[in-house]
């Protein structure tokens, strides 16, 4: 069935990397999604994609589906539908489920990733439009030995996340901010983070985390 092609990752370096480690629940789920080996997960994707099957052969000049993506420093081959968003590719084809999909309408920020060091909503980016560019997701921020990124560490210390669903997007937005402006004021950080919603309204906690990460300790505020 042609549609199965749509969910297969041609090269899954993520898998090989994971072999040596103990398999956590999260990793197991990621493997299942990435390999498309389990019928139920396949039908989840195919169910959604079946309606999108091209009604005719691709017209000359239309994009090739098999492309290379530079994600977190690795070049990965993946089969991408013409209408597919980057969030879908990352989560359901590359197994990078750290990037969250929430509104899917560029209205919340949970899916924030960096493309060439600049933040974008991956739900509102066509995967085919980022072929020649460098994508960095939350998974790409970990250190060489798996340690937390300084922004993540600061978020932990400042108890920034509450429920945590918006956190990957908040971390990526904060890292992008510090790349551009290594020591922002709290107000500058507030402006830079204004594209990331938090339904727990932990905004001040996130700002404290950023102030800690950039060493601007004077602007950490624990007042009520």
């Amino acid at each position, binding site marked *: 069935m042609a549609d199965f092609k749509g969910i297969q990752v041609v090269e899954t370096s993520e898998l090989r990397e994971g072999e040596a480690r103990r398999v956590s629940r999260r990793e197991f789920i990621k493997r299942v999604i990435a390999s498309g080996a389990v019928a139920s997960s396949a039908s989840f994707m195919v169910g959604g994609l079946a309606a*999108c099957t091209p009604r005719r052969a691709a017209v000359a000049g*239309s994009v090739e589906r098999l492309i290379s993506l530079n994600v977190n420093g690795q070049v990965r081959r993946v089969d991408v539908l013409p209408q597919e968003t980057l969030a879908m590719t990352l989560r359901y084809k590359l197994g990078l489920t750290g990037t969250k999909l929430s509104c899917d309408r560029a209205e919340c920020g949970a899916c924030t990733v960096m493309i060439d060091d600049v933040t974008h909503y991956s739900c509102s980016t066509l995967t085919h439009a980022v072929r020649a560019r460098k994508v960095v997701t939350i998974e790409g921020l970990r250190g060489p030995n798996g340690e937390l990124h300084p922004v993540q560490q600061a978020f932990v210390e400042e108890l920034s996340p509450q429920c945590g669903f918006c956190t990957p997007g908040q971390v990526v937005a904060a890292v992008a901010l510090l790349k551009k402006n290594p020591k922002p004021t709290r107000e500058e950080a507030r402006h830079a983070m204004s594209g990331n919603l938090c339904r727990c309204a932990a905004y001040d906690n996130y700002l404290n985390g950023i102030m800690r990460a950039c060493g601007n300790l004077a602007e950490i505020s624990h007042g009520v």
Partner: protein
Amino acid sequence: MAKDMMPHFDLYQPDSVEAAVDLAARLGSDGWLLAAGQDSYDWLKNRTKRTEAVIELTGIAALKGVREVAGGIEIGALTTLTEIEEHPLLREKFLLLSLAAGRVASPQIRNAGTLGGNLCQDTRCWYYRYGVDCYRAGGNMCYADTPEGQNREHAIFGASRCVAVQPSDTANAVVALDGSMVIRSAKGERVVPASEFFVGPALNIRRMTVLEPGEILTAVRIPSTWAGAKFYFEKIADRAAWDFALVSIAAAFKMDGDRISDSRLVVGAVECVPHRLTAVESAIKGSAKNEETGTRAGKLAIEGATTLNFNQFKIPLMENLVRRAIRGA
């Protein structure tokens, strides 16, 4: 989430303007021109609009960047809003446009969103965007202009069956700076003044700009006329991020001593096109740039406004914005 996958379309990614123009001519109204897609994806994901083919333009390097040209500057239509907000030359000469671009939506949307896309976006009337068969969608009624219609965001000027407003922040700045639009198609190039680029419902109720199928907005030209003038931009919206304007103002002033020798005042989100206050501009010529002139101008600006059930507040809001623009808040 799988349900939110956009329906299939053929995707074309031309790498030159010529290739894009060829595709646009070949595909005609079946070819959806896509810049960063920050407006388009909503339509396609919600299935309120569909398309057979998408011509994705962001790979065309020639459509990006700010260039100095004889008599002014030319901004490629695919220059991002963040680039426009931060560009040193624009900030030095045409700060108005940088300020407007910096108030669009959210940082991520400005990083992706382009000037051309911002200027060509569709209206935000939620009845229309919900997919009802209103005038703008080809039907025969307006759902916003009814006794129960929720029309807090809608027009107070220039309504004609449809009461939707122009949502673009940068449009007002481009009109205030006497900009013009460079449009390419298989027939060649045409240049349209910004003031004539946007169309209201009386002229064409189905679209927001003069762009015909097969035409591509390739650049925006800003003449030196207003370089380094005194600028004022203010946008009032319910939220500081993401939201579209309830009312906004883009203003430029040339001074002769303490007198206004010439000005441009353009109000946003009160009409289906950027609402230029030509009568006010004439009335304040030669006046001092102060509170008194501002008050007089504000009163004149709102003449002829027609409100709907829930947007009366736009009249004092607009009056105050005009006053603040002139006195310098």
